[in-house]
């Protein structure tokens, strides 16, 4: 059951999208988000959807998998939609429903649709990044992109290393949680019945061993890193050098075009 979590999961593949430099993908995600927030009308959203659809098709990630990642957030998306329907005020002519305390305007409905669509596309788009980029490539790319910040004493390498380690240990910790849960269940622990307080209390036998093991792992990892003479980013070279290729420049071109198109469309209010 815990294994069903797909958040931030990487699906290996060898498609043009997978092969892109992680820096390109990171920049493109930012471009995509900006473009998404520039969209104002149906035409704008349609362009974004087409763009995302093409990327998805090229990366051979099945829409079903992408939707699975959105599942845990469905509640927030629906709530946003409902709030937008009821809380957007319009003028007399656009009034659709006026019943008891509920008033719905045409603007509200439109707002709700766009809002839901925007969150939906935002999540689906960012998921494309993690689905097609391995965590290691991602942190590498991030480190390179943020390198200029070193001048103002931001510990870029350390942050990237921390992020890499954190990502690396998510599956391990999930597995560990599963194991500890089984073991405590074998001793009759009950996580499913009882009121809220009882259930919270039932988590103690899981959380304590989990924390203990996380600390133990951290210590072992630190030791192992020191044994291999890790001393921070100073003078550290990489095994895999990042290089931009033809595909990356093409992708930048597409990104620029997308941004330009969205700005033009916004200008015309589409």
């Amino acid at each position, binding site marked *: 059951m815990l294994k069903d979590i797909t958040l931030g999961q990487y699906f290996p593949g060898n498609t043009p999208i997978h092969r892109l430099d992680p820096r390109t993908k990171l920049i493109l995600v930012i471009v995509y988000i900006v473009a998404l927030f520039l969209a104002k009308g149906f035409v704008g959203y349609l362009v974004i959807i087409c763009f995302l659809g093409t990327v998805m098709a090229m990366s051979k990630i099945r829409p079903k998998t992408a939707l699975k990642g959105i599942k845990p957030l469905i509640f927030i998306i629906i709530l946003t939609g409902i709030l937008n329907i009821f809380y957007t005020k319009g003028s007399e002519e656009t009034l659709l429903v006026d019943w008891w305390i509920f008033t719905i305007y045409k603007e509200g409905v439109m707002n709700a649709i766009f809002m839901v669509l925007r969150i939906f596309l935002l999540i689906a788009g960012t998921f494309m990044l993690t689905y097609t980029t391995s965590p290691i490539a991602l942190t590498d790319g991030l480190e390179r992109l943020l390198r200029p910040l070193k001048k103002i004493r931001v510990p870029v390498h350390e942050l990237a290393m921390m992020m890499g380690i954190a990502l690396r240990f998510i599956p391990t910790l999930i597995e560990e949680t599963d194991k500890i849960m089984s073991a405590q269940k*074998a001793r009759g622990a009950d996580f499913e019945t009882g009121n809220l307080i009882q259930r919270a209390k039932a988590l*103690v036998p899981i959380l304590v061993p989990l924390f*203990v093991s996380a600390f133990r792992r951290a210590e072992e990892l630190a030791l192992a890193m020191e044994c291999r003479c890790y001393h921070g980013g100073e003078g550290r070279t990489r095994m895999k050098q990042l290089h931009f290729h033809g595909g990356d420049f093409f992708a930048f071109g597409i990104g620029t075009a997308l941004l330009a198109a969205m700005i033009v469309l916004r200008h015309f209010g589409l």
Partner: protein
Amino acid sequence: MPPLIEVQELCHVYGTGTPFQHTAIEHINFTAQRGEFIGIIGHTGSGKSTLIQHLNGLLKPTFGKVLLDGTDIWKDKQTTRQARFRVGLVFQYPEYQLFEETVFRDIAFGPKNMKLSEQEIRRRVLEAAGFVDVPEGVLEKSPFDLSGGQKRRVAIAGVIAMEPDVLILDEPTAGLDPEGRAGLLRNLQDYRKQKHAAVIMVSHSMEEVAMMADRLIVLNHGKIAMEGTPQQVFSHAQELKDMGLCVPQVTEIFLRLKELGVDVDPCVYTVPQAVQALRTRKGGSGRA
């Protein structure tokens, strides 16, 4: 009278309907009686862990049944819960599950979940601690201050305190020193004898199962490849090797001796038996 625990046509498939679909075990049939010591051997990934997690209802069979005293453990929720207490399962490296402030309270976790009286819990904790040679002075310490071997003992006591009719252990001696291993195995025998319980032990050490088990079950690719007394199983040395397993070291030596033309019976699988065999060969006199 039905056997204490009976497994009928057990199958388990992980991740049904996903690309990762994988059949872990299929068509497993076996029974265990009270007082029996059963060893389960098999290479890594042969389905041992999956099998034992079915016996106390942690995993639900995709197909097949697990019967405890003739009753399907999945009959209703209550039966499943009772099965958890009647079939005690000790996972690999159980010391990583300790969580309480004191050793006493950690061992008492199982009995407490059984909703026993304060007095009964106390009795069981003390008895379980006795079984695994945890001295009373340790009971008020924090489990995190103990040595690795002691932690392991405390964790096993936590399961023994539920006084299960079937005690299952997944590689209980992994990572222990030779003395710790021998002690722990003795403790398990004591428990089996005193409570007239069945003990099922998964192990990678052929010497251990040869010494302890009345019966061996050999798993290979999710199926039972062999079943019988250690003598029967270890007489198929080549087949075991093909499965990535082996025979006890003494058996290996005797097989080699036979190959070299020494007239010995290679059906020897513990050191005392080997000594015995060599003695008789020398005509019952002298030292082997």
